[in-house]
């Protein structure tokens, strides 16, 4: 008997496709509306209402020809209603109308007459001018969500809410947080944006590199947290990974020539290409060498490798760290068997990465690669040389255990594994180390 709550698979797919179409269109509508009303929180409320209405009525009435235009009309009316409601309590409406020449042109009664929207210049998503305005609006939205005066956790929550269109409940599930904690965090972030006046704009040229790096870092943080959860019972949180990939594509679309965005998207695609093979049927992690490579996502690998080629062509002498990390991931992804891995190339890429972005974790990964290329004794020597900075790092101790075991130093290996198990951050990884002991 069919579970009455779960729709049949075809209907569920259709509902997913609809929800994702509504979210994509909703993001564009929000980006423009936030500029027009000068208040991100109010614009979000208005677009949220419009999106909910779309999800209710489109399955019945059919998807409009231009979904974004439909959402724009409904969201704009809702925004005007909200501004009026606030206006009757203060001076908000006046301010909003001053801010926005587009809104002044609206008919007096927001519920009268349906026509007239398509004629707004600078607002048509298909016009040449419209697309560049929309491009800038989306960039404004991205930079506001990832503003450096917001905490990294707030940036992640705000990006999921505003750029990905997730509900507070969905964000709570994705981040393993309580819904009320997510709601509080979002309220505070919006309050700071409004009251401290975090500007809704693309940063000036001299700030741009640093601010763009913060945007990329926010998306990378989102991906990393989904790819290897730092807390909780499972290794992977697919919902977060999927959202990070969507944002990575958005950033690449917005700045197609940016090597950092190319590298980040390639890195995420290549790391995530192993998703189906990274955990076994019981949800336990499977080491890279033990994974069933036929289950790796060939399309994602192809796309990642193609992006790396493009990135390297654009980067010239000084590739972006994300691009180098992607190149390392590609060396693994392209090896048909673990034995066929080009460890020489991997060690070379780690040398490049160390020069660009020195740090103990990069040095640790280089030691692992060296151990594969030149044997466990060489790997252990490289590890010993950098051990000081890594005592609190579970993976460093687990790596030492693997190398010691290959050298037949079993007692030392067991003690390194015990140290790693004490430090491991998610239950799945801890279980893997315990099994070795």
């Amino acid at each position: 008997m069919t579970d009455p709550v779960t729709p049949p698979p075809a209907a569920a797919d259709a509902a997913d496709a609809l929800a994702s179409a509504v979210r994509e269109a909703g993001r564009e509508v929000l980006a423009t509306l936030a500029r027009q009303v000068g208040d991100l929180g109010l614009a979000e409320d208005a677009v949220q209402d419009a999106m909910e209405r779309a999800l209710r009525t489109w399955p019945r009435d059919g998807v409009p020809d231009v979904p974004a235009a439909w959402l724009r009309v409904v969201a704009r009316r809702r925004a005007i209603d909200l501004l009026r409601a606030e206006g009757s309590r203060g001076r908000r409406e006046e301010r909003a109308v001053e801010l926005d020449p587009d809104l002044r042109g609206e008919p007096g009664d927001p519920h009268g007459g349906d026509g007239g929207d398509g004629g707004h210049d600078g607002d048509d998503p298909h016009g040449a001018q419209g697309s560049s305005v929309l491009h800038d609006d989306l960039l404004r939205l991205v930079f506001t969500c990832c503003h450096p005066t917001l905490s990294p956790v707030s940036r992640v929550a705000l990006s999921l809410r505003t750029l990905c269109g997730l509900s507070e409940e969905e964000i709570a599930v994705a981040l393993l947080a309580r819904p009320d904690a997510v709601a509080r965090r979002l309220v505070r972030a919006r309050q700071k944006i409004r009251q401290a006046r975090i500007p809704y704009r693309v940063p000036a040229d001299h700030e741009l590199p640093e601010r763009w790096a913060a945007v990329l870092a926010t998306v990378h943080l989102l991906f990393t947290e989904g790819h290897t959860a730092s807390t909780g019972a499972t290794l992977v949180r697919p919902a977060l990974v999927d959202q990070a990939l969507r944002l990575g594509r958005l950033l690449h679309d917005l700045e197609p020539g940016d090597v950092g965005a190319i590298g980040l998207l390639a890195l995420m695609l290549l790391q995530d290409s192993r998703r189906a093979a990274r955990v076994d049927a019981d949800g336990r992690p499977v080491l890279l060498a033990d994974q069933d490579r036929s289950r790796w996502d060939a399309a994602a690998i192809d796309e990642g490798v193609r992006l790396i080629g493009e990135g390297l062509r654009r980067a010239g002498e000084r590739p972006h760290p994300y691009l180098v990390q992607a190149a390392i991931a590609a060396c693994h992804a392209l090896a048909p068997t673990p034995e066929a891995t080009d460890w020489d190339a991997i060690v070379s890429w780690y040398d490049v990465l160390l020069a660009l972005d020195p740090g103990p974790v990069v040095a640790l990964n280089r030691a692992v690669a060296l151990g594969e290329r030149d044997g466990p004794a060489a790997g252990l020597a490289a590890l010993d040389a950098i051990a000081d900075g890594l005592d609190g790092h579970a993976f460093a101790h687990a790596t030492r255990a693997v190398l010691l075991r290959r050298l037949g130093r079993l007692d030392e290996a067991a003690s390194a594994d015990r140290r790693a198990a004490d430090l491991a951050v998610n239950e799945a990884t801890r279980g893997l180390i315990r099994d070795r002991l």
Partner: protein
Amino acid sequence: MPLYAAMLYQADLDWSAPEQAADLVGYHEFGEAAAAIIRGGAALFPTVTATTVRVEGGRGGDVLTTDGPFAETKEVLTGFYLLECADLDEAVAQAARIPAAWNGAVEVRPVIPMG
């Protein structure tokens, strides 16, 4: 344009002490460079002069005073500016030019507009 309070937190100091002379040059430079946006501010005597006042039992209750600042911390409020800036980006950029930002920290908070 919105106002921001830029509050200067650093090791307790006596602005009039001779060893502050070098720092005062830095504040003087900031004062000149930012003259167009500085709408007020004050430098405070050191926390040894501070008195913290509490009223016990609600309004009109007993006045309790303690000798010293509100919180005993390594870095204390030593003064503040009121800055008129277009947005938080500008306020942060201005705060970063105040010597307290490298001797300690500057907390930037928007001021509620009145009237």
